[in-house]
C-alpha cells in the first residue's frame, strides 16, 4: 500500500513535466506579443524591448524553459507580468475560493444526483423516472451562462433574496453552486440510474431476493454498493474538472477563482500565471485521481494495490 502510494506520487512528476512542456510551447505559439500587451498600445519600441528583456522573452524558448524548470525546482513560479506579485501568491488568493465552490457543487451533485438516479432505476419507466430523465436532460443541455443569468435575474434582481455576485457569506455561494452543479447533478443522476439498473439485473441481486431480504436492504446493501463503484470515478473526474475553474460560472457571478485568473491571464498573455495555474490544476487533478483510486480499493475488495 505504502509502496503503491509512493509509486503513484512519483508518477505525478513526469505527468507534470509533460504538462509544463506542452503548455510552455503551446503558449508561445499563441498570436500576440506579451511584451506589447503589457506595455500597452502607446508604448515606444524601446519600452517594449525593455519589458521583453525583463521577462526573459528575448531568450530562445529552450533557455526560457530551462530557467522555468530551474525556478520550479525551487518552488518558484515566477512573477506575474500583470501585477508583479509572485504567481504563487496570485494562485493562493484564488485557490480556496475555487476549492470551496467545487466542493459545494460536487456535494450538491452527489446529494441530489445519486438518490435521483437510484429512485429512477428502482422504478424504471414510471413517472418519477421520466421526471428524473427530463430534469437531467435540462441540466445537461442548459448553457451555464444562461442558467446563471436567469437565476440572477430571478433570485437577486426580482426577488432580491440572494446577492448577484462576489464572495463573503454563504448566501454568495448559493447561485454559483447551483449554476455550476446543474450539469454535474444531471450527469451523476444519469450515471447512477444506468449503473443501478445494470446492477439490479445481476444474478447476485436475485440471490439476495431469494434469501427473503427486505427490498430496501437489497437496494442499499447489495445493489447500491456495487453500483457506486463506477459512480466514484465519475464524481472524481467531475470534481477534478470543477477544480480547474468554472470559467463561465465564475465570470457570471464575479467569483474570484482560478478559472477567472486563468482567463484574465490568457487575455493579458501573462505566461507565468498561466503556467503556474495550469500546473497547480494538473497537480490537483492527478491527486484527485489518486484519491479516487484509493477509494476504489476501499470499496471494492477485488482491487488490491501492491
Amino acid at each position, binding site marked *: 500500500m505504502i509502496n503503491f502510494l509512493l509509486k503513484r506520487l512519483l508518477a505525478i512528476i513526469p505527468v507534470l513535466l509533460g504538462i509544463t512542456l506542452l503548455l510552455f510551447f503551446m503558449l508561445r505559439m499563441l498570436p500576440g506579443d506579451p511584451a506589447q500587451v503589457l506595455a500597452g498600445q502607446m508604448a515606444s519600441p524601446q519600452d517594449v524591448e525593455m519589458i521583453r528583456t525583463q521577462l526573459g522573452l528575448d531568450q530562445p524558448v529552450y533557455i526560457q524553459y530551462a530557467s522555468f524548470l530551474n525556478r520550479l525546482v525551487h518552488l518558484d513560479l515566477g512573477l506575474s507580468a500583470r501585477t508583479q506579485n509572485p504567481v504563487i501568491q496570485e494562485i493562493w488568493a484564488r485557490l480556496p475560493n475555487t476549492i470551496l465552490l467545487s466542493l459545494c457543487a460536487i456535494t450538491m451533485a452527489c446529494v441530489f444526483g445519486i438518490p435521483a438516479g437510484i429512485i429512477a432505476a428502482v422504478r424504471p419507466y414510471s413517472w418519477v423516472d421520466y421526471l428524473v430523465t427530463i430534469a437531467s436532460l435540462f441540466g445537461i443541455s442548459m448553457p451555464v451562462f444562461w442558467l446563471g443569468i436567469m437565476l440572477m435575474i430571478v433570485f437577486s434582481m426580482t426577488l432580491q433574496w440572494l446577492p448577484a455576485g462576489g464572495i463573503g457569506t454563504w448566501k454568495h455561494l448559493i447561485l454559483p453552486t447551483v449554476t455550476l452543479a446543474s450539469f454535474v447533478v444531471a450527469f451523476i443522476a444519469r450515471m447512477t440510474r444506468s449503473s443501478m439498473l445494470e446492477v439490479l439485473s445481476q*444474478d447476485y441481486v436475485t440471490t439476495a431476493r*431469494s434469501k427473503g431480504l427486505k427490498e430496501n436492504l437489497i437496494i442499499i446493501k447489495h445493489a447500491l454498493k456495487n453500483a457506486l463503484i463506477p459512480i466514484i470515478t465519475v464524481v472524481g473526474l467531475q470534481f477534478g474538472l470543477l477544480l480547474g475553474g468554472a470559467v463561465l460560472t465564475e465570470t457570471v457571478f464575479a467569483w474570484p477563482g482560478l478559472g477567472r485568473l486563468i482567463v484574465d491571464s490568457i487575455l493579458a498573455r501573462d505566461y507565468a500565471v498561466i503556467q503556474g495555474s495550469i500546473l497547480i490544476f494538473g497537480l490537483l487533478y492527478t491527486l484527485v485521481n489518486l484519491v479516487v483510486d484509493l477509494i476504489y480499493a476501499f470499496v471494492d*475488495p477485488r482491487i488490491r494495490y501492491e
Partner: protein
Amino acid sequence: MKAGMAPLLSIVGLKTSFHTLDGTITAVNGVDFDVYPGETLGLVGESGCGKSVTALSVLRLLNPSMTTIHGQVNFDGKNLLSLDPEEMRMIRGGTISMIFQEPMTSLNPILTVGEQISESLRLHEKLGRKKAWEKAIQMLEIVQIPSPELRVGEYPHKLSGGMRQRVMIAMALSCNPRLIFADEPTTALDVTIQAQIIRLLEHLKKGSNTSIVLITHDLGVVAQMASRVVVMYAGRVVEEAPVVELFHDARHPYTKGLLKSVPVLGGDKKTRLNEIPGIVPNLLHMPKGCSFHPRCSMTMDICKKESPSMIHFNKNRRVACWLATDDF
C-alpha cells in the same frame, strides 16, 4: 410416490407469461406437479423449456411488472401466489430456498462469504450478529470447505467455482428449509467438481427431511439423485415417471430422445450422441398441435392439429402424447 403422504408443494396449472416488446411470451404453460416431503424430484428438459422460470415463479422472483403468473402453488396449505408480498418474502430463504446455476455471478462480489450467509440467519432465525457468524462458519464446515474460520471472512473472488457453489449451498441450507430448488447446480462447473458437488448434495440430503427440486439437463445427475422425474418441453410437462421407470420405459418420444442423447460414460464429454434433431420452438411462434411434432419421428396427422392431453397411468406415471394409450 409415497402412498398416503400429502405433497409438500403442489403446483397446479402454472402459467407464466413475460410481456416483452416483441409480444407476450408464455414460458411456462400449464405445468402441474407435486413434491413430497423428503424426496428429490428431477425436473429435466432442454435449454429454454421453462425449468428456471417454473422455479422462479414458485418463489415469485420474477419482476411483477413484466410477468403474469396464473395457477396455484400450494405449499403447506397456502397458495403462494396469493400471499401478500411480505408473507412471501419471509418464506423465501427460510422455508423455501434456491441454489442458482452460476456460482461465479450469484454471489455478491463486495460482501464477504460470511456476511452473505449470516444475513439470512439474522433475518429468518433471528440470530444476533455473532451467533449468525458462528453458524455461518458451521455451515461452511457442513459443505466441506476447508478451514472455514478463514474462508468465512473472504470475498467470493478468492474462491473457485466449486467453492462458491458450496457457499451457495451453505446459504440455501442455512435456515433449514423444507424445500430447495437447485437450478442446475453443477452445469457451470468442471466435470470433476460436478461430481463432488453432487456427492455433497447427496450426503447432505441423507441426514435431512428437506425436499429438493433438482433442475438439470443432465440425466446422469437425475439418475443418481432423483427418485421421480418430471420432463418438460416448451413450457409444458410431457412426461412424469419414477426414475427407474423413466430410464427403462420412457413413453414420450421426446424423453426417449433425451435419453439417447445422454453422453456415453467415459466417452468424449463434448459430443452428444444422437442429439434430438431440430430446434426448440420459438415461444412467440409455437407450432399448432403438439409442440414437439416438428421434431418427432413418429408424428401422426392428429399431432399437427391438436395438442395431446395428459394421460395418467397411475399416480406417478403420466404422458402427454397421442401415441400413449393404457396398453402402450
